[in-house]
């Protein structure tokens, strides 16, 4: 048995163990900790599957941002589970459910082991079209050129999620500052870290976007890092977001999708169609879209993590 196989097995067992813990833990807090661990080990599995782009996204979004969100929610929920004892399914029902879920897993596993050969692949096509985008990273090429519509819709989904989160605000709080007001001097250690780390994180986040054209990275990974840095400063009480009624804030959130759509429409007139790039300007336009997207993704993620407004303006 080779060393890489051993590593893969160890990784798979760690992911499965963290997932089991997440489902079986007694308290919500323990389950959330299990879930964060799940995301981190899973991101290593992505590296082993040869896709560092996904690994970065998983670590930043799946473990990092989700962890902040879920831990915050657990703390605020406290002992409230929002479930009654009578909501728990009976043992017999649980066993039956478990049986059918296991059956589904076995069927899926069997299918995955018996996929036809040779495997269908769009890799040669992606490689052939990559040259036109002048990018070195095929995943960025797919995200911003070939499947640009998916990426545009994804950016729009983030905007919709922000609208959704804001809309659960209590009536009286509409138009106020989003999120809890953080105590200005909660913890000296946190405050010090929030004074030193964010500028370094900004450099790392922008670099992830910049390098995404050639190497693993991109708008989503970099944008998440930028958002995390701002949220860190916010948690330490050093910065606060503008009110949700602020026009400036709203423009920031939609800037990315707007620029994307505008350049897409440009393609309708100057190139082959909507979201196609004029050949001579492909790379600069992609970089422009990516920069605007990064900014709006970062703002949207911050607003999603911070939550709806809590108090009147």
């Amino acid at each position: 048995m080779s060393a890489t196989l051993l590593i893969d097995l160890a990784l798979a067992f760690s992911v499965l163990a963290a997932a089991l813990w997440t489902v079986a833990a007694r308290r919500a807090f323990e389950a959330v900790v299990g879930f964060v661990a799940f995301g981190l080990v899973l991101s290593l599995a992505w590296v082993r599957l040869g896709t560092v782009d996904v690994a970065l996204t998983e670590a930043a979004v799946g473990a990092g941002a989700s962890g902040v969100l879920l831990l915050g929610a657990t703390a605020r929920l406290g002992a409230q589970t929002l479930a009654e004892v009578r909501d728990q399914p009976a043992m017999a029902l649980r066993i039956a459910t478990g049986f059918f879920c296991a059956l589904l897993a076995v069927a899926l596993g069997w299918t995955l082991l018996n996929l036809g050969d040779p495997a269908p692949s769009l890799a040669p096509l992606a490689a052939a079209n990559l040259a036109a985008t002048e990018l070195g990273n095929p995943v960025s090429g797919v995200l911003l050129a070939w499947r640009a519509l998916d990426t545009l819709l994804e950016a729009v989904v983030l905007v919709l999620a922000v609208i959704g989160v804001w809309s659960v605000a209590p009536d009286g709080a509409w138009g106020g500052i989003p999120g809890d007001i953080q105590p200005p001097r909660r913890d000296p250690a946190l405050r010090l870290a929030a004074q030193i780390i964010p500028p370094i994180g900004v450099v790392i986040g922008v670099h992830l976007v910049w390098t995404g054209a050639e190497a693993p990275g991109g708008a989503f990974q970099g944008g998440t890092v930028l958002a995390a840095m701002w949220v860190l400063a916010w948690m330490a009480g050093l910065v606060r977001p503008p009110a949700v009624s602020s026009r400036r804030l709203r423009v920031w959130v939609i800037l990315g999708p707007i620029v994307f759509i505008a350049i897409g429409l440009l393609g309708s007139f100057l190139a082959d169609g909507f979201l196609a790039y004029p050949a001579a300007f492909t790379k600069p336009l992609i970089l422009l879209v990516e920069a605007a997207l990064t900014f709006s993704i970062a703002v949207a993620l911050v607003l999603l993590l911070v939550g709806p407004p809590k108090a009147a303006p």
Partner: protein
Amino acid sequence: MPPLAALPRFVGLLAVWVVIGGADLKGLAVGAATAAIATWFSLRLLPAGVLQLRPLPLLGLLLRYPLQALRAGTEVACRAFDLRLSPGFVPYAPVTAPSVQRDAFLTWSSLQPGTLPAGEDEVSGAVAIHALDVTQPVAASMAAEEARFARIFRG
């Protein structure tokens, strides 16, 4: 913003860009713009002039650190094997008044052998230092480290 006071930060952040991204010319232009934005953010979080570092004492402190880390790690490792513990809190009143310098010293001391600051006492204002072995001279080593640490700041 005073441009000269921000220069060391800008240079430091640009250095971070070069370390993670290399120094090709096109990337460096983006890196400089990024470092400028990051410097602006840094100045918002920590105004210029609050932390004035003296390069040589700072270098001395950093060069001494690997030895301290080795001592700290070895001590914990030994105690993990033979479980010779008498854990507890030792109150320590830092000489430095509450400030960024003091916060920095406390974070620094949590990486030194045997000491872990665990928050201030509401009444006395002294910092409760948790130690694995309270029979060691914890307060004395904190005081020595604080004197050493204070030298890296100007003024």
